[in-house]
């Protein structure tokens, strides 16, 4: 029994091995690491694109959630993997522009990764509760001047925290760190709940995370950071408010690999992503959640991520927000 099973297994393996000498990349399933837990925004985005992407790749995509430490655990797992194209990462604004800018002890840097694409952009929106009596950015800024205002986030060193600080700074508050109190929560969902129950006054987050609350009238949108208004949010854009430098403050999702990925493999990923993002069903589902589908080439993606990182890093250094311990 044992022998025959072993024999069967090795025969299958030999068959596969013989196949792989002839076939080119990819000849086996590709492990796609999602650095956040099941059910989160990154997870849903990743699983939505995995359907058309799997068809383009022609091999199964195995989705692996490796969550922890604000995405660092999963990113490190990919950083340490071989760059053979069989381990890829769903990189996110949090893991690859906010965390490197904020955390001195982060065990990886941008140079450890090669970005093959950015496929999704998420506008950032600032919201408050109707009970706060605030209806516009102007009023919010005035109230911050009076003191006693707080904002929630998905944790220290998260996009939410950085967004709130950057926006306050853009609106002329010189020392945002002491002007308003930061009340960190455990997750993005908890951050929204904290506004609903009055723990904190305002929150700047991905539009998709609060879309339902805005539609239901439980939260009031104050502004969006994009150039144009966002559907479903009755709030001025950063351009209308005359703060075009906030356009850079957006969320994104992309695909990255360890930095030693061969060029021909990277080229294939660009093609596959071009195919996958054309899928009508995929676009429809993502847009229903408030995302903007925008495929960037590897060069564009790199420039975009580095630009965003530099902006964030400058701000963090100016304010002394960097987490050193």
């Amino acid at each position, binding site marked *: 029994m044992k022998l025959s099973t072993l024999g069967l297994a090795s025969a299958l393996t030999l068959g596969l091995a013989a196949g792989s000498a002839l076939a080119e990349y990819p000849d086996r399933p590709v492990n796609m690491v999602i650095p956040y837990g*099941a*059910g989160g925004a990154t997870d849903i985005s990743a699983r939505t694109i995995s359907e058309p992407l799997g068809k383009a790749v022609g091999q199964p995509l195995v989705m692996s959630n*490796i969550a*922890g430490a604000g995405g660092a655990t999963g990113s490190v797992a990919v950083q340490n993997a071989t760059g053979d194209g069989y381990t890829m990462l769903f990189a996110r604004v949090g893991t690859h522009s906010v965390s490197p800018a904020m955390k001195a002890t982060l065990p990886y840097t941008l140079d450890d990764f090669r970005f093959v694409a950015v496929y999704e952009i998420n506008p950032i929106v600032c919201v408050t509760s109707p009970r706060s009596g605030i209806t516009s950015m102007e009023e919010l800024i005035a109230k911050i001047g009076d003191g006693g205002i707080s904002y929630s986030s998905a944790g220290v060193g998260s996009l939410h925290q950085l967004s709130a600080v950057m926006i306050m700074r853009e609106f002329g508050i010189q020392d945002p760190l002491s002007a308003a109190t930061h009340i960190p929560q455990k997750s993005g969902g908890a951050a929204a709940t904290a506004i609903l129950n*009055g723990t904190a006054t305002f929150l700047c987050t991905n539009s998709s995370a609060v879309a339902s609350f805005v539609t239901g009238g439980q939260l009031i949108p104050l502004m969006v950071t994009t150039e144009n208004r966002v559907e479903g949010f009755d709030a001025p854009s950063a351009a209308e408010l005359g703060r075009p430098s906030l356009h850079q403050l957006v969320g994104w999702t992309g695909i990255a690999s360890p930095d030693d990925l061969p060029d021909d493999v990277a080229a294939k990923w660009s093609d596959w992503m071009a195919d996958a993002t054309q899928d009508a069903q995929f676009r429809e589902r993502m847009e229903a959640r408030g995302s903007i589908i925008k495929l960037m080439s590897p060069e564009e993606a790199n420039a975009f991520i580095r630009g965003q990182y530099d902006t964030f890093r400058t701000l963090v250094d100016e304010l002394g927000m960097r987490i050193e311990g």
Partner: protein
Amino acid sequence: MSIFDNLVAGLGLVANFEAFLSLFIGVIIGTIGGAVPGMSVTMTVALTLPFTFAMTPITGILLLLGVYKGGVFGGSIPAILIKTPGTPASSATVMDGYPMAEKGEAGRALGMALWASCTADLISNLSLILFAGFLASFALSFRPPEFFTLILFSLTIISGVSGKSMLRGAFSAVMGLLLATVGLDLVYGTNRFTFGDPNLMGGLNFIAVLIGLFAIPEILSVVWKPGDAHDRTRGLGKNWVTFAEYKRSFKSIVRGSVIGVVLGSIPGIGAAPSAFLSYSEARRKSPKKENFGKGEIEGVAAAEAGNNGVAGATLIPLLSLGIPGDVITAIIIGAFMIHGLQPGPMMFVTNADLIYGLFIGLIVSSVFLFFIGSAAIRVFKFVADVPRSILFPSILVLCVYGVFAVNNNIFDVGVMFAMGALGFVMLRNDIPAAPFLIAYILGPMLEDNFRQAMLMSGGSPWILVSSPITWVFWGLTALTVTAIVRAGIKAGRNAVQKAVTEEG
């Protein structure tokens, strides 16, 4: 529209073969997923999610809800049979379920788990339908100060699960609290006991700690004292739970369900604390206190009622406010959104038929759970008859696969074995594992909410007594602590008297 009109509209929506079929399949998938340690309900629901994309909204959501309901019960099967909770929520079930299995009464334990689960499920679903509006506003009044006092009160249940010695239970709890500090600090993001290792920055994986603490020490105990000779005492046994036993435990089941409903409607607590709270309340009220932890069927009933009571109530904040109470409901919210539905107060106006359709489906799911659960017990019962020298190596391998699958990380497997070693030392020294686990779950919540409250108030402690809810929980905590101290003094006096009599 009246409730009756809505009900009719909802019935129109679910009264088709596919809706019930998908609910039925969902319960089956959930029971299996829950029964595989490490799979967990969360992962099973996440895996089922993509299949709902192509379905109509009601069919897809019923499928997910079926998985959820089935999974919460399914977790109790391995908890009873192999001392490995299939889901964190079923860890309280281990305390009396496994001793019963050891005595050859696995059939009774599983039967009671099923009956208690179905009853609690039904009560939870009915509360969702009847009190959603009221409980939802209650949920929103829980801010960090209220949470802090609630969790402080919940920590007193440690005394109820400490077994022979309060002090050893307290020591166990402190160790659990200490271990939970590993990771990144909430407010400043600095490292605590991470030694620069990225695997430790996220804290220790909860499932790895859970399985390491319960299952591995059991394997080590068999290694300590091996042999297939006393297999005959195990086995499912012909015994099945009787109606008289159900009636006797009925009070505990209802109490557990109510605890589950209240804790479930508050976002962020989860099913495990509810199961432990229900268990310790049942023990406190029971005339057979001594028997708890040694195979008391009422303990199984209370634990299962506590965790299933949560399963319907978590939908209260989800449907009425759009707030997910835990990770599982967060995934279910995702399913709503993919279909273009946005849970929240508006949904009762815009999609009332769908809501009432879901309500009908939920009630039916309790019935499905009863039949599928009975079948599952029959399928899994062979596990109890497997010789120990085959069963325990299988558990070992299953735990490794399961713990790896939770977060795709080999490091977690190492954590599981390390926790197993600690758990074995604790077992040999009669230090109970349950307080460790409760502290590990509640400790970080206590600290985080305390610090969030301090941030809100700018450092003033008065915020911790600023609302009626906090007063209630401070009062309850004071009452419970007084009762514990009095019981402790009484026990101490008796012990001294006994020692004196023995000497004299």
